[in-house]
């Protein structure tokens, strides 16, 4: 299962990286006739502006995967930092941070993303930032629960009594203990980030228009022409589904390896 997922993902990443070599045409060029059905020259057909859908899907992989991976990095690193600091230093630091986390968690994910997108405007950079930062509260909560239990372990006490500074304990002992959970979270959230980016772009709040995003290609003007060119709607969606499936399978596999007896990580501290 994990192997299948990893191979799907690997294949897609390969395509994304090698996009200029794989894609037959420039995704933004509108030189072709519009509304062509899928054919040998245009495997996925062309859209209403005359762009080759196949090329757009391939280049779209770059954007979706790139954003997904970048956002996962931000969320993982940020979430781990916040979680560790909050849990390890406890006291009022923990209290304040947790209150702030709870406030942000009041807004459902998509709503928060929509509000942030409305406020910050559309650009690829903004999308990455929004996605990454919006996930930090939840990540930090989960990391914090791990650190809270690790903190009381005898080996930490032993290290402290040997004179280890807080910094050293943090780097050498505490951080590594969060890595298994962080790995699971990162792999599971990659799929979610890709989905979120697609959703945001679909709604018109994500990646700015001319860029070939899988979500954006399924919305806007494309919707009005669905009757004439259903393939524009079908293929990007297929690509998204495949990618997320791959990411989810990998995530499941990692989880099975690290923690086969996990009941569920549904307890996000509530």
């Amino acid at each position, binding site marked *: 299962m994990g192997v299948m997922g990893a191979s799907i993902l690997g294949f897609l990443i390969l395509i994304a990286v090698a996009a200029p070599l794989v894609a037959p045409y420039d995704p933004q060029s509108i030189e072709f006739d519009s509304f062509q059905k899928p054919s040998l020259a245009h495997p996925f057909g062309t859209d209403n502006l005359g762009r080759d859908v196949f090329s757009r899907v391939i280049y779209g992989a770059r954007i979706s995967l790139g954003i997904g991976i970048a956002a996962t990095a931000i969320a993982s690193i940020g979430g781990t930092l916040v979680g560790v600091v909050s849990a390890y230093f406890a006291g009022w630091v923990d209290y304040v941070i947790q*209150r*702030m986390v*709870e*406030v*942000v968690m*009041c*807004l*459902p*994910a*998509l*709503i928060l993303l*929509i*509000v*942030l*997108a*409305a*406020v*910050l*405007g559309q650009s690829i950079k903004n999308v990455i930032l929004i996605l990454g930062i919006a996930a930090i509260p939840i990540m930090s909560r989960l990391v914090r629960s791990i650190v809270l239990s690790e903190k009381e372990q005898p080996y930490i006490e032993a290290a402290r009594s040997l004179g280890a500074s807080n910094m050293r304990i943090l780097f050498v002992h505490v951080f590594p203990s969060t890595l298994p959970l962080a790995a699971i979270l990162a792999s599971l959230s990659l*799929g979610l980030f890709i*989905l979120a980016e*697609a*959703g945001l772009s*679909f*709604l*018109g*709040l994500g990646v700015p228009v001319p860029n070939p995003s899988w*979500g954006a290609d*399924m*919305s806007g003007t494309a*919707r009005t022409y*669905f*009757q004439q060119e*259903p393939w524009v*709607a*079908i293929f*990007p*969606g*297929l690509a*998204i*589904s495949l990618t*997320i*499936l791959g*990411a*989810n*399978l990998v995530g*499941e596999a990692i989880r099975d390896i690290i923690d086969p007896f*996990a*009941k*569920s990580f*549904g*307890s*996000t501290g*509530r």
Partner: protein
Amino acid sequence: MLGYIVRRLLAMVPILFGLSVLVFVLCRIAPGNIAQIKLGPDATPEQVAELEHEYGIDKPLPEQYVVWMRDIAHFDLGKSLLRDRPIKDEIASRLPVTVQLLIMTMGVSTTLGLTIGAVSAMNHGRPLDSLLRGVSILGMSVPTFWVATLVILLPSIYFSYAPPFSHIGFFQNPWDNLREYGPPALVLGFASGCGLARIVRGSILGVVSQDFMRTARAKGLSEAVVIRRHALGNVMLPIITILGMEVLGLIGGAVIIEQVFNLNGLGRFILESALSRDYPAIQSMALIIGVAVMLVFLLIDLAYAWLDPRVRLTGESHA
């Protein structure tokens, strides 16, 4: 029990307060204030200043916040910039749509989730389990807006079928109403149900394998009693948490679904407000949603307290 409820309600207040501040600050720091957006790029500075004064946004930020809070205390949510109608009216007219959608979706989701999850758990290790697990993961991986788009597209292409275009109340015409809300509820409910199914399965498997279950059976209790008295409560706890989280996810999902299926609900309202940078509307909706979410959290915690006596005594959700 009552003490627990009161404590939780009191704990909600500072968070709501923080939420209002957060939403307020977010909407005010955005580039381009309300007056500029409303008047457009050709407005003269005098026109902008005049409108700013009328909207009260030329006052210092803390004062604006106080004004907003005072308005809210009087249930005045302000006027939407885009439509020039009081936001309260906009919300009132769209609320029934979203509520119906959510209720139907929750129905589909819980039915599907519980059924698939239970069946999957009971057939643990057999092909049926693997099949259902595969379906669940698939259902969770596919973006809802894609499925929704296909659900609208394909019937119209191949069967020339179109759902009703404008909103039909349930009491006017039940069948058309179902045709209007059925597909969206099914699409959203399926996606949500798949996530639920996985947790249900995991929860059941986790509980059933525990020692106290063996003890109960060894005591000679009938299977029905064993399940009802010992398994059910423990199984329900994580399920309830996830149910709550799913409801929250549905609020976001409703935005997409309403957009695709052209339903005029609250989700669409937020989306349109965000796209047109209608900050008063965004602010109010964010606050309302935040309140709704907190109520959901409260309900979850209450359910926990009811099911798990340890919570009532210690006030903690995890013993």
